[in-house]
């Protein structure tokens, strides 16, 4: 055989296993008699499981019935989904008054609309959008869900939230239609595009101020009836607790992580102690402590309801985990980045906020999302301190007289719900990762 090829070697097609599924199957599943046997046995086991589940959950299942007895009359081996269906409202909303359910839905729709611009590439000022959600949405949603009389502070924040929401929507529209930010669009409308920065800023502030006054006047006469937190429950309550948990545990975790790396000994020791204590006890203990021990330390007459106690526990507990994730992320940033940033004169906060955190957060996304998923599932523990979150609701179906003893179906339904939520979150995090790394090639 000649060692040197005189002519250009022709391109040959890739081996079958690389290009066709059939080739892949042959190489990986049917390469020998033994492997073929294994594959067939496995397929058979998979078939048995799936067909069993399918028969139980669909073929033999009862979807319409008034009580468990009727399910049995229909089929002894099938699932009794009728119970779950009858309780759907409870599972989603707890005991929230049935006439007021629109408020919960409105809160959800507002959140989705508010966050929608974050997913649209044409819309500008995403950081502002994100910040406005975290700062203002809780007040608006809080009022919509609880209702009652508004204090001055609440009036102020609710007006701010409505204004922020409206501007956000206008910004989204001007982004989608004109491909500019709302501010630029406003300058164009008023013919001030060429005007100095100061004129433009004054115009913007003027418009915002006028709009705020109008909104304030309108909202002051708007009230919704009060709904006590004891009526909150189901998936709604789970999402409220985990939503607050997610939104506040990351910022708090960042603060704790920075504290733990601080040069100031007091700050460092306090942060480290706090993190280590909360990380070394199970959430369940924290929850019990919050409800039984916490009131003992508090001054006479100071009273936190169980919901707030639960939320605080979940937030603090998860903030400590976030803090460790953030710390690991910070450690992955080379020292040169800090030095590069210092040499252009950025101080501690500038360096952290503009140079280090943006890079570190990108590395931390998988862990953060993992932690968020964990948080969502962990919040079901609040049913232990007597809050009727989704798990509490699912379990009370079996104590409802018509559906006495119906355990399996509600839990399976809950598992499916959680799977859908958690799986889409982890899918989204993968998408986010690849998007971010496409943007900042190293």
């Amino acid at each position, binding site marked *: 055989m000649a060692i040197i090829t005189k002519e250009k070697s022709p391109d040959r097609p890739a081996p079958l296993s690389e290009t066709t599924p059939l080739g892949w199957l042959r190489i990986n599943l049917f390469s020998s008699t033994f492997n073929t046997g294994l594959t067939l046995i496995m397929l058979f086991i998979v078939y048995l499981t799936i067909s069993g589940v399918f028969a139980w959950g669909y073929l033999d299942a009862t979807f319409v019935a008034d009580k468990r007895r009727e399910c049995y009359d229909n089929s002894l081996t099938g699932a009794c989904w009728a119970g779950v269906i009858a309780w759907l409202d409870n599972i989603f909303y707890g005991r929230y008054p049935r006439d007021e359910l629109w408020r919960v839905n409105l809160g959800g729709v507002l959140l989705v609309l508010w966050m929608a611009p974050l997913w649209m590439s044409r819309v500008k000022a995403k950081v502002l959008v994100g910040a406005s959600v975290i700062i203002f949405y809780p007040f608006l949603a809080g009022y919509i869900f609880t209702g009652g009389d508004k204090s001055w502070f609440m009036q102020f924040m609710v007006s701010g939230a409505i204004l922020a929401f409206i501007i956000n929507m206008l910004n989204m529209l001007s982004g989608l239609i004109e491909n500019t930010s709302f501010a630029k669009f406003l300058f164009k409308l008023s013919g001030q595009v060429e005007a100095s920065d100061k004129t433009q800023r004054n115009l913007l502030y003027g418009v915002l101020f006028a709009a705020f006054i109008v909104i304030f006047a309108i909202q002051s006469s708007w009230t919704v009836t009060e709904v006590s937190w004891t009526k909150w429950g189901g998936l709604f309550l789970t999402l409220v607790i985990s939503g607050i948990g997610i939104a506040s545990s990351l910022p708090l975790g960042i603060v704790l992580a920075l504290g733990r790396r601080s040069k100031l000994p007091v700050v460092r020791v306090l942060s480290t102690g706090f993190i280590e204590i909360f990380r070394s006890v199970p959430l369940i203990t924290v929850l019990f402590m919050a409800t039984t021990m916490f009131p003992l330390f508090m001054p006479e007459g100071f009273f936190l309801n169980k919901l707030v106690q639960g939320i605080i526990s979940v937030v603090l507990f998860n903030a400590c985990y976030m803090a460790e994730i953030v710390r690991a992320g910070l450690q992955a940033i080379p020292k*040169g980045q800090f*030095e590069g940033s210092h*040499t*252009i004169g950025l101080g501690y906060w*500038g360096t952290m906020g503009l140079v280090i955190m943006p*890079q570190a957060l990108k590395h931390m996304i998988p862990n953060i999302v993992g932690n968020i998923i964990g948080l969502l599932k962990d919040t079901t523990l609040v049913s232990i301190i007597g809050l009727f979150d989704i798990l509490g609701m699912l379990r009370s179906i079996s104590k409802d007289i018509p559906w006495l003893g119906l355990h399996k179906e509600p839990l399976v339904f809950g598992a499916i719900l959680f799977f859908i939520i958690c799986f889409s979150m982890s899918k989204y995090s993968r998408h986010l990762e690849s998007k971010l790394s496409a943007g*900042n090639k190293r």
Partner: protein
Amino acid sequence: MSEEINTSQLVSAATSEQMIEINKMNKWYGDFHVLKDINLTVHKGERFVICGPSGSGKSTLIRCINALEEHQEGDIIVDGIKLGKNLKNLDHIRTEVGMVFQNFNLFPHLTILENLTLGPIWVRKMAKADAVETAMMYLERVKISEQANKYPGQLSGGQQQRVAIARSLCMSPKIMLFDEPTSALDPEMIKEVLDVMVELADTGMTMIVVTHEMGFAKTIADEVIFMDAGDIVERNKPEAFFGNPEHERTQQFLNQIL
């Protein structure tokens, strides 16, 4: 070239303003005595080249000038301000002193243009449009303006180092420090970076450069400093330094690198 050196010496003689003054400065890393009784004065417009074997404390010295490292004894006075624990002073000095590192230390998550405008916008509080204009001017000067919207990772080493130089210049520093700016580069890229630095020297910038590029040192340096084991062993005009070094250690070192 000799003419240029003469004119710039005239400038430095006319305005013999002291930019950096180091008096009996000592630094330790734990028990390890890195810098020993360092004395050095740099006037406005002067250009020093520092060379010496690896581990002799060259990086540590210029990092002390920029307050990236703390010194334990003696004084360092930069632009009339004494370095110490005062954080406000530190930030001020860092805006007046630019620094270029061996491995660039560009910010990988920002485009070239954003790398350059970050300091002017957030530290100098410049309007964004002005900052962009300045940045483009400096990118032009380091001959890389067409890459403004790429990310650092998409550029070659030589290009990245030129961006790093431009990033420092955007802060209009009074002093520029260079820590082996070409030693992480492939040979064919070294020249493009040195050319930029020679041009910068021609503008009368006060510079301290740690480098082993002797041709470059001869071209721009007012004085060459040789360091060994934490001491400044020898300092001299380039011709004398390379022609007939006084110390045996310098001689040995030059034999190794030439």
